[in-house]
């Protein structure tokens, strides 16, 4: 049986194709203003990689912020449910999933069957974690990828008080003018995200194993800082961006 999951995130749209319960292919494309078109594009790309056509797909489930735009999907599920299901498939022992995406973050307690036990989402003031890193990287005149290496090289803790992009940019500028090393500023930026994410996770309660997913999970410095703050090991899937789409594809096969 061939099924597909499409996860329309704020920054990227992901599609996963499952053939008989195994991942056959996946894709990741930027989310445009026309979210339906982005979903079509992601699905087309994933199907192409698997050598399949749309008529081969027996079930499609959409998830993510733009899921309601995907009128060709057979059903929709929230990203929380899809992530839980996908996470259970990837790491069955995980009981706490932290998803830090471009615009939203949430933490979910997952049961031993892959169902959601409880979840919390970021409130507005902690929103935009992924977008925040991009914006701050621009303020530091480095790439997003560079942020990881810079932060890991930092030897000093520098406090940043805000995550609001508007204010944070002025704070970064102020740190630069104060002569603070770029490595330390990069670390401070990532710490700002992590402390807010960790605070959200603590509201939920931490139960091992813990996994981090979403675009920000690709940043090793964020993973390390999250581990340090939570005091637990953090698992990261091989491709942390497609867990939601995977979960949706799994649900489509049920």
């Amino acid at each position, binding site marked *: 049986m061939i099924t597909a999951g499409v996860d329309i995130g704020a920054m990227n749209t992901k599609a996963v194709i499952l053939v008989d319960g195994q991942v056959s292919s996946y894709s990741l494309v930027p989310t445009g203003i026309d979210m339906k078109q982005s979903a079509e594009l992601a699905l087309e790309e994933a199907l192409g990689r698997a050598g399949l056509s749309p008529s081969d797909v027996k079930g499609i489930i959409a998830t993510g912020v733009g899921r309601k735009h995907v009128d060709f999907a057979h059903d929709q599920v929230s990203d929380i449910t899809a992530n839980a299901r996908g996470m259970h498939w990837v790491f069955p022992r995980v009981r706490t999933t932290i998803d830090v995406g471009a615009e939203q973050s949430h933490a979910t307690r997952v049961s031993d069957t892959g169902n959601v036990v409880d979840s919390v*989402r970021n409130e507005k003031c902690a929103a935009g974690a992924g977008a925040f890193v991009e914006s701050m990287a621009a303020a530091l005149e480095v790439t997003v990828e560079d942020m990881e290496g810079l932060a890991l090289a930092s030897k000093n803790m520098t406090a940043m008080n805000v995550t609001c992009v508007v204010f944070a940019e002025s704070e970064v500028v102020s740190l630069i003018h104060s002569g603070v090393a770029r490595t330390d500023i990069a670390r401070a930026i990532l710490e700002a995200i992590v402390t807010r994410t960790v605070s959200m996770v603590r509201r939920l309660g931490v139960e091992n194993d813990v996994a981090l997913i979403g675009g920000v999970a690709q940043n090793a410095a964020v993973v390390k800082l999250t581990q340090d703050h939570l005091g637990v090991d953090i698992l990261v899937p091989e491709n942390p961006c497609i867990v939601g789409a995977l979960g949706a594809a799994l649900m489509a096969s049920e």
Partner: protein
Amino acid sequence: MTQNTYKTKPLDCWQKARELRQKHYHDIMTAKEQGRLLVTGSAPPLPLTAGIRDVVFMGGEPWAATIALDPNLSEQCLEATEAKGFARDLCSYCRNYLGSMFLSRSPFGGVPKPDFCFTRHGCDTHAKWYQVVKEYYDIPGFVIDMPFGPPGEREKTRTEYLVAQCHEYIEWLEKTTKRRFDDERMIAAIRNDWNATKLWGEIALLNAAVPAPLDQVRIYSLYVIGVLERDKKETVQFYEILRDEVKDRVANQIGILATERWRVLHDSQPPWSSLRLFKHLEEYGVVSIGSHYSLFLGGAYEKQDGNLVPARTPDDRGTVITNRDQAIQAMAEWYLSQGAFQITLSPRIRIQDTLQMVRQMKANGMIMHLNRGCEAASYGQMEVRLALVQAGVPVLTYEGNMGDAKEYDEREAFDRVDGFMESMGLKKLV
């Protein structure tokens, strides 16, 4: 998931409720033509002003909530207030009300000039709010500082302080209006206030029945009558009719929803521009059966065998009331013992009340509006959430503002509801 289907029908007294609300606002708009004095302040007011004849009270919060129902009008009002230099993080009721006053614009046409302000200072905004009104219209005003506090703490001192202020207000009232104060009229108003509050407590607790006879949106429309005019005998009479009808619905298993699969309590005032949120819940067969705000602001309760029951009024307790002093003493004790106002002071009491409500009202979960528009109502919310979660009660939070649609993202709130329902194993009804 159990899916019970119930008989349902509209409330018979719904039209009467509409008429009472319409009459209230008509009276405000035509007070001058009727030769009556228009008084404005925080609602519900202490039931003292009825001691002088022909008074209409314009409650600030209900006025503002009515504006907030219309996002376009509300935005105009909020902008007008901000243009005068008021901060965006002030109480959004206050900002809507002041903007309405500055623009002389409201859902009822203009805004009539009050004759004086009379407000209790029950949260951190009230006194300053009506100072602005007083200065804008150049009218007199009187503020009663409400000495709320946790039960058992300095009760005697707090009561004495409130009683003294009430006497001072009556003197001020006679002097300012040049009208004779009639103790009998005030005592009748105080008794109406007690009875209306007790009746609302009775009505609200009847919603513990499955299926729920009322839902949150109807509760808002009904409890506000007691907030607007609880010192009137018409309110008491209406609540008696409503109580009897709700009892009848309970006895005959008449639900407000045909399908009731799950029951939630809602915390804090809603984003008034988005009462659709409760309709959205209904799509899942979920009924919102009340909130701390609507239960406790409208009603008074006491504990009996660990359960909330409608509070006995001082008359029920046999308190002798034959003169002004006795009436004011009993009224002060009553007001200072009521739960709604304690939320501004004690998260501990709020947690106790909320856990009790969840248990007694047979709620399956809680939806909390993290309300940026009301510091008093949002104080301690996350502690309540934690206590609920520890007690095994599922909780959904969403951020917003009761009176400022700019601070509320409806799509995001609905999305959160969808995710929450999904995680509770609920799908939309077909």
